[in-house]
């Protein structure tokens, strides 16, 4: 029983790391909202927000302050506690994912070796799944508690969509896990850093399925049925005002960032910068380059998300279900079989 004998340095280190990661994600999410508006604008031949601060860079701050200062409305017919719980849950669930993402290789500071990962747990990717499966509660509870028919429909859509696509997501990932033989994200990334190829080369179909499922899990177009503004009028967060609305909007963007980070780590080598020999520079600098690489990969993925959103129409509910159950899952199983067969053949 050596639990009380904490390594206090480790505790402080992790606390700082948590703070950096959480606030970093929040900051990135803040600017992702701005990015979304800018990307949409540029794809649509218009300049986008450019009047708040230089190049409109203060736009997200303006939105944030405005949302905080806005009146809180809790509809009289709503279930008060659950109404407040909803956005909180959505936000928490989306932020919790960042615990297992390896942001870079180890750095050395004050004579300590610091891992740029909050927790390297050996069930890392399962943890992500557990957290993602929690995420839907925020939407469901919020939508139900609003006591609005549109919100309720949106909650139901969100729930069935999340369950269906989680399955495909998991199956797509299992094929990858069969090749990596580890559940730890850190190990998976390290394998890609050391190996010659990224996992995308071995699992192109798996990645495609995972990506589509990630779109669905983040409620992004073409799977943004829960908030389809033309049908359900923003759905589950229709009755929300002020910062509770902000939480929901934020949660969506943080989800996007996290799923991008996971896709980058699982399939695109995480913090691995190709054609670059880390040993030529000091380890700390190499780690920083790694962090930068990962961030760039995340940004690229986020751009992809937005690019898709501003290009294609959305599915209808039954088509979405058909795609999930009749196309994605069989394809994922097929991918699994092929992968298994190849692994057997290699051995």
């Amino acid at each position, binding site marked *: 029983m050596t639990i009380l004998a904490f390594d206090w340095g480790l505790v402080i280190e992790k606390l700082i790391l948590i703070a950096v990661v959480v606030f970093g994600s929040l900051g990135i999410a803040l600017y992702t909202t701005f990015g979304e508006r800018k990307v949409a604008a540029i794809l649509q031949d218009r300049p986008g927000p450019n009047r708040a601060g230089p190049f409109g860079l203060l736009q997200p701050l303006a939105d944030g302050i405005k949302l905080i200062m806005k009146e809180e409305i809790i509809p009289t017919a709503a279930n008060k506690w659950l109404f407040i719980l909803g956005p909180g849950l959505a936000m928490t669930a989306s932020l919790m994912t960042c615990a297992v993402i390896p942001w870079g290789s180890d750095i050395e500071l004050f004579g300590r070796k610091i891992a740029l990962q909050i927790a390297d747990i050996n069930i890392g990717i399962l943890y992500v799944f557990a957290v993602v499966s929690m995420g839907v509660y925020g939407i*469901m509870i919020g939508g139900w508690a609003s006591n609005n028919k549109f919100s309720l429909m949106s909650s139901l859509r969100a729930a069935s969509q999340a369950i269906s696509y989680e399955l495909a997501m998991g199956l797509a990932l299992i094929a990858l896990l069969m090749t990596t033989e580890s559940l730890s994200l850190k190990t998976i990334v390290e394998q890609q850093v050391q190996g010659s190829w990224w996992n995308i080369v071995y699992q192109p179909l798996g990645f495609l399925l995972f990506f589509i499922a990630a779109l669905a899990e983040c409620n992004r177009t073409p799977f943004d049925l829960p908030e389809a503004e033309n049908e359900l009028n923003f759905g589950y967060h229709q009755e929300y005002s002020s910062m509770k609305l902000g939480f929901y909007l934020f949660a969506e963007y943080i989800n996007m960032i996290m799923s991008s980070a996971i896709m980058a780590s699982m399939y695109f080598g995480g913090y691995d910068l190709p054609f670059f020999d880390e040993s030529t520079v000091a380890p700390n600098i190499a780690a920083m380059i790694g962090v930068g690489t990962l961030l760039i990969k995340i940004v690229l993925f986020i751009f992809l998300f937005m690019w898709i959103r501003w290009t294609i129409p959305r599915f209808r509910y039954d088509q979405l279900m058909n795609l999930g159950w009749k196309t994605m899952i069989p394809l994922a199983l097929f991918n699994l079989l092929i992968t298994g067969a190849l692994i057997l053949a290699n051995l």
Partner: protein
Amino acid sequence: MSTVDILFYLLSAFAIVSATMVLISKNPIHSVLWLILVFFAISGHYILLNAQFGTIVNIIVYAGAIMVLFLFVIMLMNIKKDAEPQKQLLVKLTGVVAGGSLLTLLIAVVKQTTQIENKQVLLKEGTIGLILTLGQALFTDYVIPFEISSVLFLSAMVGAVIIGKK
């Protein structure tokens, strides 16, 4: 008391309170949410028992899937707070007394067993909860039950679809 003890008591209290709230909540949605909290508490216990896979599966399967299903069904039916007809007080009281008696009886039995009296639970050590070992056990010693359970799953799925189609 060690940290583990404190954690144990905290989690236990949490679990029992939440379980009681499941029982006494009028609103089924509240019951579902309290039950999710119970599952989280039990998952916490699993961590203390070093059953990591158990923890995560408990969360994914119970909290992440089964309870979503419950919530989904409740929302689908749109059961209101007061929709449930209340049983008579006497019936309720009988139920509570019966449950209480069961609890007393069982605890008495446990107290009398000498076999386990002083056995300590080794916490946070060893490898038996790791996925590696569990996977090996599942796919060697327990492979037949494992396969049977997958068949069970399939048949349950078919069954649910058939019932639902009616």
